[in-house]
């Protein structure tokens, strides 16, 4: 799997994931992803539009990081899942833990609103 990160002007960290988020993909990015998201009060938008396949092992990585972020006063959002990945997220009820947005602008607004709400 590929993982890139970029600090955006609005204070959001954009993390881009691409590839198969299965056991092999998770093993490749899990440590770096967890390290990237282990910052106090960080607002993290995860662009998953390049993820072609999401298994529950990948969901575990996303949810663990989202919970760690919430405990540190931060928040996570997902951007642009492909239909199969979105259906997987909805089947697992992940949209109630990590909100899903169609693009970075909307994710940024949602993350900033959730940060000011706390």
């Amino acid at each position, binding site marked *: 799997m590929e993982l890139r990160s970029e600090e955006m002007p609005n204070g959001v960290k954009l993390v881009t994931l691409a590839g*198969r988020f*299965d*056991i*092999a993909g998770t093993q490749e990015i899990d440590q770096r992803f967890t390290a990237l998201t282990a910052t106090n009060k960080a607002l993290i938008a995860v662009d998953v539009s390049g993820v072609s*396949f999401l*298994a*529950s*092992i990948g*969901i*575990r990585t996303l*949810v*663990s990081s*989202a*919970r760690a972020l*919430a405990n540190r006063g931060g928040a996570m959002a997902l951007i642009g899942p492909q239909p*199969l990945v979105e*259906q*997987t997220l909805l*089947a*697992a*009820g*992940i949209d*109630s*833990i990590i909100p899903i947005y169609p693009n970075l602008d909307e994710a940024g607004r949602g993350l900033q609103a959730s940060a000011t709400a706390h």
Partner: protein
Amino acid sequence: MTWSVSLRVRNDLDELTRLAEWLNTCGEQHSIPEQTVQHVDLCAAEAVTNIMTHGFAEAGAHEIAVRLGQQGKDVVLEIEDDGIAFDPTEAEPPPLATLESTRIGGWGMRIVRRFSDEVRYRRINGRNCLTLIFRQPSPTGT
């Protein structure tokens, strides 16, 4: 079955990559629609992960048999293991995880139920036999 092909994997999570590659190759060779292959791939990953993670009480080597085939129009995935008896058609999925809870997991069975059209289970001679059916639309649309 009209046709079927089989693969045996060891109870080692690294085997999941070989399983996924095999399913995708079979899908292509047998002209299974891409969306069905994706659903089979996802359900197989979840069901086999579940067996490898929870199915065996002792740490010895086990094999899990996976068979992909077609019965009439339907694509059929069968998974057989000699682990602890587990009937996923009887088990209630755990409550949905929340941001506040510390529980992690329990998503696999929800994913299998969402992406397959029918889940059947039998315990035969000390083996779990799980059958997942993926219905295909009739070519005439009826």
